[in-house]
């Protein structure tokens, strides 16, 4: 049993760390910058322990129900409160966020060593972790929105951490603006709820309190309040989903995620594993009781998720930047989670979020480790790193196998559960929809396997192709500007322990997190953790949470065969032709490869057509014309009128002293005459 103060401490410690670093350590200069790292690690370490304690006690049946603190009483039925909503979803998210964040902070001690803005980096990282923790704890939708935007802000700061690089500044801006497009939907949903405040007040509910929103969406027959239903409910869900799609990089708002690779690699790991992108899935999970009341909304979530899963995976096939491959993989895996939520497999989706956090963080940290040695992120200039960095190699392979979903690694259990739920259907959407989702996700497994092992082969197998030095040399010969982030600093060797240590921890998690947290197909693990523990725990957070289906060997065989087929294809393409040098065999795909490598030209569509043509040439041109001619014209006209009326009236000032009393006398006469006529 934790006191309320201890639960708040999980959130307040990183906040304190942010203030301490920003206010004290950073102004003291670079000599004490290392302290920033220790402070952050300490804050998150304590937070991690507290989160584990919280999860353990809650799972053992301790009821956490702290009364929220009133902040603003806007209207009857609409109070903004600061509260703690401690349900299974929050508790597991807390462990994931603090755990992954802690590993990333430790890793950063090695990765960011020597960076001139070391303290600033840790200040941002503390803020980022604190915002995400605040987000998962929030019990009020406005409180949630505050932290939602803080997550957006801190990711903006971290993606643009190396702000002297134009590409990083542009990527930060892009991430901020594109997620903001989705956030408009979220904000509209909040405003919609605010306008329902009277209906909520009539039932003694608070329109901004999240559990009350769940009640409001449930029909009266099911014990709810039935305040929001039908079309309004659908639009409410779509608004929330727009926010989630922006943050979680779902089609068509996914384009910011690959560009977000401009930040330091540990930041990418944190963004992609535990914080920023998980926030979108968390939002849909948080409002799952609302979504599940609207079949239309569920269908949209399922189809967009499944489509994104395949769509992003195809782009991952043609990316040459190791971190971009990871980025597409993240978008694709988030698609899995969204699809699972959409078909009603709430617990499977969150289970996948849980396992994904570990193996994706591991893969990103591996990519950072590779970059540390090779001086570039371009896989075309890597190769053969297996011998130089054995730990990184094996850990990356574990991460990749887990991502692909090979038995018995963590990713297998969660992905298998999603596939199984999609195949069996949960009744949340039409069977045809969940079968379509199943097919798309199975295709996604094949593609995932292919691009993952393409990445492994290009990076670690074959001959070393020169690293950053060679890439800079080639760019110079071709007369192109050097890509950012590429350095001459190539030293083939294992990364320092600061970096490998966290990777080992994440590697172990990527192996065991699946079957330890959620044993499937057995009665229990070590007699401690019963079968389906995690998914049942998630389900206990819902009123009508359904239990996961029993383990199906047939489904496991199918998904593994598909995954192995993908791996086999990758091996055939990349390992077999020994003569492979600097040209990707996939370029023989011609126009298809070009379309994939150009990301389906969506960036061109957004930036060239929508922003460049529509926005700059039409919207901006019209507003510019309006500003120059109408707004400035009105201002100019006001001055012109005053000036001319003034000189006209000045004519009356003729200096003749008798004219003035004459006018006054006539005026008096007029008043008298008017009085006589009208009075």
């Amino acid at each position: 049993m934790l006191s309320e103060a201890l639960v708040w401490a999980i959130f307040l410690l990183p906040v304190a760390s942010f203030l301490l670093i920003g206010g004290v350590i950073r102004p003291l200069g670079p000599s004490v910058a290392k302290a920033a790292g220790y402070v952050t690690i300490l804050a998150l370490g304590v937070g991690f322990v507290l989160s584990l304690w919280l999860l353990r006690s809650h799972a053992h049946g301790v009821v956490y129900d702290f009364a929220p603190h009133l902040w603003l009483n806007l209207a009857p039925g609409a109070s903004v409160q600061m509260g703690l909503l401690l349900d299974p979803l929050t508790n597991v998210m807390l462990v994931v966020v603090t755990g992954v964040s802690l590993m990333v902070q430790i890793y950063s001690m090695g990765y960011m060593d020597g960076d001139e803005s070391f303290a600033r980096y840790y200040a941002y990282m503390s803020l980022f972790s604190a915002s995400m923790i605040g987000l998962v704890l929030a019990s009020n939708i406005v409180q949630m929105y505050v932290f939602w935007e803080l997550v957006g802000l801190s990711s903006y700061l971290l993606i643009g951490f190396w702000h002297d690089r134009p590409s990083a500044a542009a990527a930060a801006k892009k991430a901020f603006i594109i997620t903001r497009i989705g956030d408009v939907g979220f904000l509209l949903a909040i405003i919609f709820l605010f306008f329902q405040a009277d209906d909520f007040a009539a039932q003694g509910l608070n329109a901004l309190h999240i559990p009350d929103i769940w009640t409001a969406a449930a029909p009266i027959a099911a014990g709810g309040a039935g305040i929001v239903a039908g079309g309004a409910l659908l639009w409410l869900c779509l608004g929330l989903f727009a926010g989630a799609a922006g943050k979680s990089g779902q089609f068509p708002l996914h384009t910011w995620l690959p560009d977000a690779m401009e930040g330091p690699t540990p930041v990418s790991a944190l963004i992609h594993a535990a914080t920023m992108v998980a926030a979108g899935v968390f939002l849909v999970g948080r409002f799952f009781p609302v979504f599940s009341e609207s079949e239309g909304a569920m269908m949209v979530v399922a189809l967009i998720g499944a489509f994104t899963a395949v769509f992003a995976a195809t782009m991952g096939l043609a990316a040459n930047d190791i971190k971009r491959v990871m980025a597409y993989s993240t978008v694709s895996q988030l698609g899995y989670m969204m699809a699972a939520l959409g078909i009603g497999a709430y617990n499977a989706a969150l289970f996948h979020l849980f396992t994904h956090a570990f193996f994706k963080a591991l893969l990103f940290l591996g990519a950072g480790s590779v970059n540390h040695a090779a001086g570039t992120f371009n896989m075309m200039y890597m190769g053969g790193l297996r011998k130089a960095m054995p730990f990184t190699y094996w850990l990356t392979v574990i991460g990749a196998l887990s991502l692909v979903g090979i038995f018995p690694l963590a990713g297998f259990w969660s992905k298998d559960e999603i596939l199984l739920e999609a195949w069996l259907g949960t009744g949340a959407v039409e069977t045809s929809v969940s079968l379509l989702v199943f097919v798309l996700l199975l295709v996604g497994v094949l593609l995932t396997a292919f691009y993952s092992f393409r990445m492994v082969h290009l990076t670690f197998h074959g001959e070393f192709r020169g690293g950053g030095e060679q890439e800079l040399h080639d760019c110079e010969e071709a007369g192109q500007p050097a890509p950012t982030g590429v350095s001459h600093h190539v030293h083939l060797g294992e990364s320092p322990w600061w970096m490998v240590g966290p990777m080992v921890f994440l590697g172990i998690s990527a192996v065991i997190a699946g079957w330890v947290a959620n044993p499937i197909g057995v009665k229990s693990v070590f007699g401690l953790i019963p079968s389906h523990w995690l998914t049942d725990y998630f389900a206990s957070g819902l009123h009508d949470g359904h239990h996961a289906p029993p383990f199906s060997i047939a489904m496991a065989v199918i998904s593994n065969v598909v995954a192995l087929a993908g791996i086999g294809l990758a091996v055939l393409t990349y390992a077999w032709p020994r003569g492979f040098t600097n040209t990707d065999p996939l370029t023989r795909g011609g126009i298809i490869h070009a379309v994939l490598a150009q990301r389906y030209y969506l960036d061109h569509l957004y930036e060239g057509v929508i922003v460049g043509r529509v926005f700059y040439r039409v919207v901006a041109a019209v507003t510019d014309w309006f500003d120059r001619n109408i707004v400035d014209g009105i201002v100019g006209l006001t001055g012109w009128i005053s000036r001319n009326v003034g000189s006209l009236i000045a004519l009356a000032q003729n200096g003749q002293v008798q004219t003035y009393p004459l006018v006054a006398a006539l005026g008096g006469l007029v008043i008298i005459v008017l009085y006589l006529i009208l009075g």
Partner: protein
Amino acid sequence: MSLESMLVVAAVLFCVGLYGALARRNFIAVLMSIELMFNGVNLTLVAMGRWLAPYAVQDALSAVLTGQVFAVFIITVAAAEIALGLGIVFAMFRNTESVDLTDAAAMRH
């Protein structure tokens, strides 16, 4: 004498004064015309004061003599005004060798 005849005389005095003040060019003549206007006003006050006397509250001397008091007050102010006005006339004549008001147009736009 009736109130009306006194008011008519007062109005005629006022209008003659007004005409003079607006139409004459000689500054001194204008000042004299202004005196005529004052006297038109004074005559009105005195006439009204006398006419209202029967209605005034008994034993309240101030109420009975309000119009007359005003007239005496205005005569005093008019004396001060004419002293000031003649001072301006002297100053104007020193500077411009003229007492024609149309010449004093330095304040025009």
